[in-house]
């Protein structure tokens, strides 16, 4: 093939490829497209909805009511050392992002005991909603294999990141910043 023809063809094909992928990707960012994403507790999927009772007033927390807002879900247990280590950083992050992001702590109550949970909440000064997973439904639905596990969910309800284990303050802030954009 002659070189000018080869390069003209290459330019057209690659240009069309970049424009095409860019346009399809742009359309996929719309809320309508996000609504068609399947539900799974993994990055890139829509978060599985759940309903739990809140500590201490037994109010119902339904994640369906939170659609349209970025959400940070932290699943923890009072006896878990990494949970104890990361909570002061989450408390600091709440002060910074609490007005923009819904913070939701889910205690693995089925594997914990209430006096320790209460002590944990009081000790670290957790002031955002804490939901109690008494039957382990959320643990099962979200395939939790270790504590703590953190989920970052954007406004469209898509999970943008899953962090299993301790999350550093820097990583936490980066992810929170990302879901507010």
């Amino acid at each position: 093939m002659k070189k000018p023809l080869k390069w003209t063809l290459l330019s057209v094909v690659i240009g069309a490829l970049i424009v095409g992928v860019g346009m399809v990707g742009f359309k996929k960012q719309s809320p309508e497209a996000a609504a068609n994403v399947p539900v799974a507790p993994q990055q890139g999927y829509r978060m599985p909805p759940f309903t739990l009772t809140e500590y201490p007033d037994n109010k119902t927390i339904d994640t369906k009511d939170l659609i349209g807002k970025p959400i940070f879900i932290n699943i923890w247990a009072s006896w878990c050392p990494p949970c104890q280590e990361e909570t002061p950083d989450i408390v600091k992050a709440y002060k910074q992002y609490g007005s923009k992001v819904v913070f939701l702590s889910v205690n693995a109550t089925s594997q914990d005991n209430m006096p320790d949970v209460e002590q944990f909440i009081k000790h670290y000064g957790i002031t955002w909603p804490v939901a109690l997973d008494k039957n382990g439904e959320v643990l099962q639905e979200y395939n939790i294999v270790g504590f703590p596990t953190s989920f970052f969910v954007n406004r469209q309800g898509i999970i943008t990141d899953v962090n299993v284990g301790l999350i550093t303050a820097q990583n936490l802030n980066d992810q929170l910043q990302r879901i507010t954009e």
Partner: protein
Amino acid sequence: MLYSLLQRIPSVWIALVVGGLGAWVYLRTVGNNDPVTDAIKDRVSGVVLVYIFFSKFVAGLIFHPSPNLRDDIFSMLGGSGTNGWLVGILAAMLYLLYGLHTARVLGRRAFAVAAEGTMIGSIFFFAYLAVVNINPFRLEFSLRSIGAILLLLWAVRKRAQLVAHPQRLWAAFEALLFVTSVLALRTTVLFVFSPAQWLFIGVIAGSLVIEGIADLKGLPDSPQTHLTEKGQIQHDFNEDQNALNGPNNTVIDHTNEHDAH
């Protein structure tokens, strides 16, 4: 117990091990004691380990050095962030390039064999990910696996052309990844594209630059593209001998040139 352990290991790591094993077996089978193929085959496990180590552990130190240095070592586990994969890929690439350089086989043939190994590894890598994910990711990974099979078949049929222009296979592979990336929603977007898509565009652009240079200047040792695979091995061996002993001790093997004709 086993199920629980497997659940704790990221599926990408398992897919990498599966893909690496597939590539290793393939390179071992087709290698025929070829020094270039052997050098790449011997580094497959290293590439997998370097990727895992750097993407998960070292990336945290690079992106967020102060908290990782201040806190205990466990914080490294949670510090890699979402861009750890990029550090892992760069580290694995550098590891392979450095290894091939020290083995004195770095060149167009090495890029061609590495591309072929990447294709076979990708078939298994994406097939595994297709199994453990649900749609739309399952469709994306399935198409990538099938695409890698087609590219591998093309590479095997046009091996002489591939040795002369390995950038074409790399560009075609990246184009495959780029096109299939539209199937799933991207959660991180930087100027229209996701970081992974920018990486694909970067490799395609790099391949075009190399193609352009080859078109403008020609290939420095283009005669070897006409040789058979055995001839290419002999050619590389002669070049190594030249480098070691000087041009007077070159081993001349005309039979390969006859093979080519």
